[in-house]
């Protein structure tokens, strides 16, 4: 691979920068396991055997620190622990646990270093290990990047096994038996005479022991729970209206708050007149906030109404007020001065193109809101020397730090109660709602204040997905793709998002080229260049991040070149593919869809592929051109996550990801006019509705050598497969999302 020297130098920078950052604490500190946070506050006779298992005389609680935003994170984390602990899921409670460095996310480093996820070289593995140190150090208890499973796969099973062995040790001591004679089952140690000693009865003795250190994890063939269909722990509550979300919080004396922020996100609030609003029914207080105002009232609807009645003088947008300005900025970023990375540069692209290219095209992807169905909300109670925060968040430790900074109360006295989230797609990686709720609660100490964003405030202050533009060229020869050159320009998501947390995002931003530079193809002349556009509207991680736009760019450009070569789209991808699990998913969708089989008139079939978050995912989309517009008939999906822990949840997440990818590619964009987002609700940002939903067939493969998460990887190939299918059916090549700007959908 070209540029190995460059990478080695950057690798070194990543490693040493992190170490420099941590010198004050010593490198040794990185290696010391963080303290078990459950040991503070432990009730009498309770044992917290690891940071993940809490046993009292009454109950067994499994700690599931990764946030559940609908992806089943609580269930899968609980199952990983329970598998080794030998408890059934109906015997346990779950708790998200406190924000603590003990719950750092080690899997996140995988996508922060410049190695393709298919690259298992020593250099790549070493760099990932180095990155682990700062992540552990910073204690980034983050849910994101489809990392819950890869991060917890060994760690949580190990936690269960350590707890189990320690409980056996306790039983051995109490009953004067040899540990080897004991077995465990359904939350109890079984003595040789068949007596069942429940774990709860062993808690106080176990608490006096050093946790076991020698444990071996069971082989997958021995699993009772994992790998088999499970019932999610939240499925009954979510089907009966009894699941509480953040928005359902209630406390004695609670008041409800609404917010109005500068329609131009991040613009100033210069002044306001609340005299009309203050006269309104139920209004308690109108409070100035950074960039807006908040209203505290005795009912959410009254607060919404009053917020609209405040007269506010808004400052201008800190970014181009009209879309033209955004596209122009992207268009002007394809220059050497803006080059951010060129991790893929094989053969000699320039020499090949100087003989004449067969294609020169431009692609575009719009801003997109995350728009989970539950609008963001947070309840904050500012007390004497203590703050309580009830919210759903993917970043509990940042929330804790930010609330501490705002209130001047020590972080250890800021109690974060993590709640079930009604969808996120990356939205809850931001914590503005908590900061604003805290400012409001500070205006009324002693009163719990629940801030709920109206849908309009939520959608127009969403920190959308990046806007992006790509320019592609290529050349074909002898019926094959010979040269592929893709440049991608976007502002840096990481700089925008981490900047809001006061963190530097040093080095190239891999998300600018994610889903493009790292694709498992060998093309004779193959180049992917990332260009960092200036900051425009503030942006953040949206389900699959950079790959959400780049998967579309890369795969559709490849499809165009394959058509230019006159080759078969599936066969040529397979010919170019150099990674066995990726070939396998392409072959799988070929079989599932009967690729090459006859289609009706005005029908078309397109294949799309993207490897993201380490997961190869291929999709075949079939569309028909009807009198009412394009109808998506069927989708075939194959993905390889190494190991499927719950086939039912896996299938649901894959289908959901495909629908998310297709729905936004078809129907959605956020555009700015006079600095304000023009889409304020689901009438103008519909996603996909049920009548547009195709039949979807899913096939999971388990051949890859590492376990991966499935929350994001089905998203990037969907738009590409749809665009390629529409081309096959109609001859129209769509190079800009949303496609509804150019075709109607039935």
């Amino acid at each position, binding site marked *: 691979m070209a540029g190995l020297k460059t990478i080695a130098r950057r690798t070194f920078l990543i490693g040493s920068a992190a170490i420099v950052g941590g010198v004050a604490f010593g490198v040794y500190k990185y290696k010391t396991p963080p303290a078990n946070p459950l040991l503070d506050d432990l009730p009498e006779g309770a044992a917290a055997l690891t940071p993940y298992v809490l046993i009292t005389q009454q109950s067994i609680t499994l700690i599931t620190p990764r946030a559940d*935003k*609908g*992806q*089943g994170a609580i269930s899968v984390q609980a199952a990983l622990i329970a598998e080794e602990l030998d408890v059934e899921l109906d015997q346990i409670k779950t708790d998200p646990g406190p924000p603590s460095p003990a719950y750092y996310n080690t899997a996140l480093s995988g996508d922060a270093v410049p190695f393709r996820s298919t690259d298992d070289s020593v250099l790549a593995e070493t760099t990932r290990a180095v990155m682990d140190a700062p992540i552990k150090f910073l204690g980034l208890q983050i849910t994101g990047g489809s990392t819950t499973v890869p991060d917890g796969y060994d760690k949580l099973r190990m936690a269960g096994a350590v707890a189990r062995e320690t409980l056996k040790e306790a039983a051995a001591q109490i009953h004067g038996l040899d540990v080897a004679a004991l077995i465990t089952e359904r939350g109890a140690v079984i003595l040789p005479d068949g007596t069942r000693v429940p774990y709860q009865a062993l808690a106080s003795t176990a608490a006096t022991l050093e946790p076991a250190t020698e444990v071996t994890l069971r082989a997958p063939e021995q699993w009772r729970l994992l790998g088999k269909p499970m*019932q*999610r722990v*939240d*499925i*009954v*509550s*979510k*089907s*009966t*209206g*009894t*699941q*509480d*979300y953040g*928005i*359902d919080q*209630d406390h004695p004396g609670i008041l*409800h708050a609404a917010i109005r922020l500068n329609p131009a996100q991040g613009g100033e609030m210069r002044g306001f007149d609340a005299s009309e609003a203050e006269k309104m*029914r139920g209004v308690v207080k109108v409070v100035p906030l950074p960039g807006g105002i908040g209203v505290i009232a005795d*009912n*959410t*609807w*009254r607060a*919404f109404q009053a917020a609209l009645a405040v007269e506010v003088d808004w400052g201008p947008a800190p970014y181009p007020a009209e879309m033209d300005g955004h596209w122009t900025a992207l268009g002007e970023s394809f220059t050497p001065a803006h080059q951010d990375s060129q991790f893929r540069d094989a053969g000699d692209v320039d020499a090949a193109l100087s003989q004449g290219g067969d294609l020169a095209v431009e692609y575009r992807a719009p801003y997109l809101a995350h728009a*989970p*169905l*539950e*609008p963001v909300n947070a309840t904050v109670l500012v007390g004497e020397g203590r703050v309580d925060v009830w919210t759903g968040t993917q970043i509990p430790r940042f929330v804790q730090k930010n609330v501490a900074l705002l209130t001047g109360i020590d972080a250890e006295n800021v109690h974060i109660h993590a709640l*079930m*989230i*009604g*969808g996120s797609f990356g939205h809850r990686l931001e914590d503005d709602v908590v900061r604003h709720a805290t400012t409001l609660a500070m205006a009324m100490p002693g009163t719990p204040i629940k801030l*709920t964003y*109206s*849908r309009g405030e939520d959608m127009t202050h969403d920190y959308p997905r990046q806007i992006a533009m790509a320019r592609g060229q290529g050349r074909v020869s002898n019926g094959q793709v010979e040269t592929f050159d893709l440049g991608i320009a976007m502002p840096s998501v990481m700089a925008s998002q981490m900047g809001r947390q006061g963190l530097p995002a040093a080095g190239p931003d891999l998300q600018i080229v994610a889903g493009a530079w790292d694709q498992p193809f060998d093309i004779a002349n193959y180049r992917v260049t990332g260009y960092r556009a200036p900051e425009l509207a503030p942006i953040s991680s949206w389900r699959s991040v950079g790959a959400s736009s780049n998967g579309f760019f890369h795969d559709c450009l490849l499809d165009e070149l394959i058509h230019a070569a006159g080759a078969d789209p599936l066969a040529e991808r397979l010919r170019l593919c150099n990674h066995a699990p990726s070939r396998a998913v392409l072959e799988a969708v070929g079989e599932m869809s009967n690729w090459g089989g006859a289609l009706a008139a005005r029908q078309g079939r397109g294949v799309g592929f993207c490897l993201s978050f380490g997961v190869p995912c291929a999709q075949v989309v079939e569309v028909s051109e009807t009198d009412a517009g394009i109808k998506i008939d069927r989708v075939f999906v194959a993905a390889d996550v190494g190991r499927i822990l719950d086939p*039912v949840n896996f299938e*649901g*997440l894959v*289908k*959901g*990801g*495909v*629908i*998310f990818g297709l729905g936004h590619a078809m129907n959605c964009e956020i555009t700015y006019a006079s600095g304000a987002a023009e889409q304020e*609700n*689901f*009438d103008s940002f*519909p*996603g*996909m*509705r*049920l*009548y547009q*939903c195709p*039949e*979807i067939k899913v096939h999971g493969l388990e051949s890859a050598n590492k376990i991966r998460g499935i929350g994001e990887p089905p998203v990037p190939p969907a738009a590409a497969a749809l665009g390629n299918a529409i081309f096959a059916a109609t001859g129209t090549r769509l190079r800009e999302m949303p496609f509804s700007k150019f075709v109607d959908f039935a």
Partner: protein
Amino acid sequence: MFRPEETAKRGRRVKLTVNGTGHDIKDVEPEMPLLWVLRDELGLTGPKYGCGIAQCGACTVHIDGVAVRSCQVAAGDVWGAVTTIEGLGTPEAPHPVQAAWIEHQVAQCGYCQSGQIMQAASLLAETPAPSDADIDDGMSGNLCRCGTYPRIREAVKTAAAKLSGG
């Protein structure tokens, strides 16, 4: 049962029957959407706020057995008995539609599902054996941002079978 005219006469007082219980709510403006009376005044949080403009269906409840968007019905205009998801069935004794939702493990984040289930129950009351097109028509006003539509379709069919004794 009460009549809207009476409510109007009483001014800031609303009478509602919700899940079989009568409520005489003093001091609520009749124009407040039913959703917010249920959630913030009566503490029934099964109906969810998603859009406030009849675009998502998360707030769906029944009035006399028919699905309505509670964000669009002024509390003073309620014309019959209100049923929320809490009144449809319970974790111990789920309604057949809820049982089908559990069986198919429809929910991801689950936030839309109270509304989906109330919509489906109303659809099946009117159309006990819905065709695919009936399901598309009946359920497309309920948004699911997580994309659980394939399982919603399956669960509606299972619920139809359960309700018809199949």
